[in-house]
């Protein structure tokens, strides 16, 4: 008994001593770590959550969102033949882009033409982003707005924590260049502002197919600003990206020429009242222009196969959102609603045939979510969202809804999360409406796909170790597929399973390890994208040096008759802090050139998704 008491006191004293003997440097570092904004913004009840903290992003020396998307387990990032980034779920071909939603702060980066603007923003610069949260097996109820099962939320840096600026210059071995600049200030009367500007010119490796050059170079400019005072926040962004179309859309991938020019401007005004009421009004304008020329001919719906293909899309989106949280003794109730106008203008030139049309959607939505804690360790989440789609032309109005029930239970170091989500994805305009059936053979009678997700996750967190095991069983009614002649149709039912295992270990405040493994399988039994994969990430700091190592693995797959062997991507970076405010860094991507590959219909070999790159960069804080 006495011995036990002594060991108890010894532990108490040693823990107290450990606590009190921290140096000021350790305390400041720990304070910074504990004050990470992600700890304030994250929502554990919204799904399975992965966070990329500011410290991690800085050590990784990420330039664009793509550097983070590469690390996604489910789904995996890839690129289409015309150089657009999309996702695949393990064993599945390309996922519908409208299933994945991207938010910057609380603004949904949406599109009328494609449903989600992630295809444009997937390569956005992230120097102005503080941290990234990824919610899987989610619904959008908690975040309001349009439905999706993977929600990527980016949060911008806070002016009150920056109070100053940063300039960053980067260049790679292929002659690419990039410049970033941001500045933030808070005035004495409480007005704070932040602005960011970026320009880049990225050269990518040129390949050849049947004597034709396959270019994928791109250049972009972006701007973001916000002003905040007394609960009002006005923010806006602009992003323009022009890129070559790589293999293009031709039947034999023999492009004569090809370019995609996308731009997106948005503005949002938000007011958060002390009583929990939030009101947001936003306006988005997107222009997308794709032109291609290929003698092997490009499919253009009813226009048949054409040599010259040009499509211009103009989206105008206005939204008004109001929501309020009611806190009660056992949790909170969120009630909200929004109206969104999504207008589309399309113009196309396909050899001698042209098309021009407009349509608009009025989307009305109400939603509510109850988080009820039965006791300090057990929380129930119930959500409902009702959406009404009314189109101005030809497409029938639709009533859709989302239902979600979840339970979060904590047993000491173990947390169990279970969710059942019945949701849907809104099919974008371009698949539903087009009076000339050009460039797509549209189907106004398409039903919206209706996935049902049953998910279970277990987290074990003890001291420095965290283990996460997750599984999701998904059935999809009315999945949208395309026949050989290009006609779109609904597949009655399919299923899909996915599994993730994650482990992280914090050696100390500056050194950590993260690992993950994933797998998936689908009803067809086919393996059209890697079935298994995983990553190892190692974050280290020694004195003035930050080191980062990342290994990614994707298993073999067989797509369009092309077998792709297992691929390994090794990426590493080193940063030297010359002073507190000046640093120089080197980031090597796909260092051994053995990284991820993608195959395409009718191409007898696979192509790399990412280049081997070495970025040298210099950062200065002022």
């Amino acid at each position, binding site marked *: 008994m006495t011995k036990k008491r002594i060991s108890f006191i010894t532990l108490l004293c040693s823990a107290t001593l450990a606590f009190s003997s*921290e140096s000021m440097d350790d305390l400041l570092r720990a304070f910074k770590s504990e004050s990470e904004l992600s700890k304030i913004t994250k929502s554990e009840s919204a799904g399975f959550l992965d966070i990329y903290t500011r410290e991690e992003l800085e050590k990784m020396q990420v330039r664009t969102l793509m550097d983070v998307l590469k690390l996604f387990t489910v789904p995996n990032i890839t690129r289409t033949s015309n150089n657009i980034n999309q996702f695949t779920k393990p064993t599945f071909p390309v996922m519908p882009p409208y299933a994945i939603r991207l938010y910057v702060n609380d603004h949904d980066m949406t599109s009328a033409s494609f449903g989600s603007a992630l295809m444009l923003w997937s390569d956005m610069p992230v120097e102005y982003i503080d941290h990234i949260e990824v919610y899987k097996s989610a619904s959008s109820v908690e975040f309001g707005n349009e439905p999706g099962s993977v929600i990527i939320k980016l949060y911008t840096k806070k002016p009150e924590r920056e109070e100053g600026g940063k300039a960053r210059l980067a260049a790679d071995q292929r002659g690419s260049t990039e410049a970033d600049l941001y500045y933030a200030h808070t005035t004495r009367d409480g007005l704070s502002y932040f602005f960011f500007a970026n320009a880049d010119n990225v050269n990518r490796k040129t390949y050849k197919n049947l004597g034709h050059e396959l270019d994928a170079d791109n250049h972009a400019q972006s701007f973001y600003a916000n002003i905040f005072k007394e609960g009002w926040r006005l923010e806006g962004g602009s992003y323009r990206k022009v890129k070559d179309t790589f293999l293009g859309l031709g039947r034999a991938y023999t492009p004569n020429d090809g370019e995609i020019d996308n731009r997106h401007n948005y503005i949002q005004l938000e007011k958060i009242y002390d009583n929990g009421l939030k009101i947001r009004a936003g306006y988005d304008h997107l222009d997308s222009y794709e032109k291609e020329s290929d003698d092997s001919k490009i499919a253009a719906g009813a226009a048949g196969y054409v040599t010259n293909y040009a499509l211009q899309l103009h989206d105008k989106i206005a939204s008004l959102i109001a929501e309020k949280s009611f806190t009660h003794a056992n949790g909170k109730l969120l009630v909200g609603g929004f109206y969104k106008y999504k207008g589309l203008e399309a113009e196309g030139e396909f050899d001698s045939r042209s098309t021009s049309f407009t349509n608009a959607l009025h989307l009305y939505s109400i939603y509510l979510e109850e988080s009820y804690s039965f006791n300090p360790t057990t929380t129930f989440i119930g959500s409902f969202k009702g959406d009404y789609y009314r189109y101005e032309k030809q497409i029938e109005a639709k009533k859709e809804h989302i239902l979600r029930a979840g339970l979060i239970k904590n047993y000491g170091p173990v947390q169990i999360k279970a969710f059942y989500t019945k949701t849907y994805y809104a099919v974008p305009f371009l698949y539903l409406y087009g009076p000339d059936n050009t460039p797509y053979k549209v189907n106004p009678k398409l039903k919206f796909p209706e996935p049902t997700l049953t998910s279970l996750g277990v987290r074990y967190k003890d001291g420095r170790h965290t283990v996460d095991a997750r599984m999701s069983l998904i059935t999809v009614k009315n999945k949208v597929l395309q026949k050989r002649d290009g006609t779109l149709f609904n597949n009655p039912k399919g299923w899909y399973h996915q599994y993730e295992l994650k482990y992280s270990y914090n050696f100390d405040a500056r050194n950590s390890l993260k690992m993950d493994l994933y797998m998936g399988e689908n009803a067809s039994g086919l393996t059209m994208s890697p079935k298994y994969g995983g990553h190892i990430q190692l974050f280290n700091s020694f004195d003035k040096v930050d080191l980062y190592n990342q290994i990614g693995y994707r298993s073999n797959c067989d797509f369009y008759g092309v077998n792709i062997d297992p691929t390994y991507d090794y990426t590493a970076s080193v940063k030297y802090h010359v002073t507190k405010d000046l640093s120089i860094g080197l980031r090597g991507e796909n260092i051994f050139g053995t990284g991820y590959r993608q195959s395409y219909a009718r191409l007898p070999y696979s192509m790399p998704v990412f280049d081997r790159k070495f970025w040298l960069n210099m950062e200065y804080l002022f």
Partner: protein
Amino acid sequence: MKKLILILISALLLSASPAEKERSIYRTILNAIFPDKAVIHVWLDNPKKRAIFEKIKRVEVVNDHKRADILILYNSFDVPADNKIIFADGYLVFEHFKNRLVGGFYWQKGRPNLVFIKKNLKDHNISLPPTLKEYIEDDM
């Protein structure tokens, strides 16, 4: 059961929150500025920070700044012109009083900063322990 209590106590002791870390930082700062005082009287202009200081041993938060040994300012730019020791809890206050205050703890450039000003420390006859010497700046 006892094992569980041991684990819980260890977890409590080793757990951290921004407020706990901020308390540890201010405890170190105040002990360094007033090594010999039995009770340190602190006046704050930010009521949200009161809970952080009230739990520091030897510290008493006072409502009347005239009774204070140190004024910890977050957003006050107009304080009595007496010779009280001032410490900034925000960047704007630090900039405003940098000719007079002994130091500041504030967010800037995306990181928490701790700075003491040599000349002003000397004016108040304050000698910091060696562990804090690296945070002393000659001239701001």
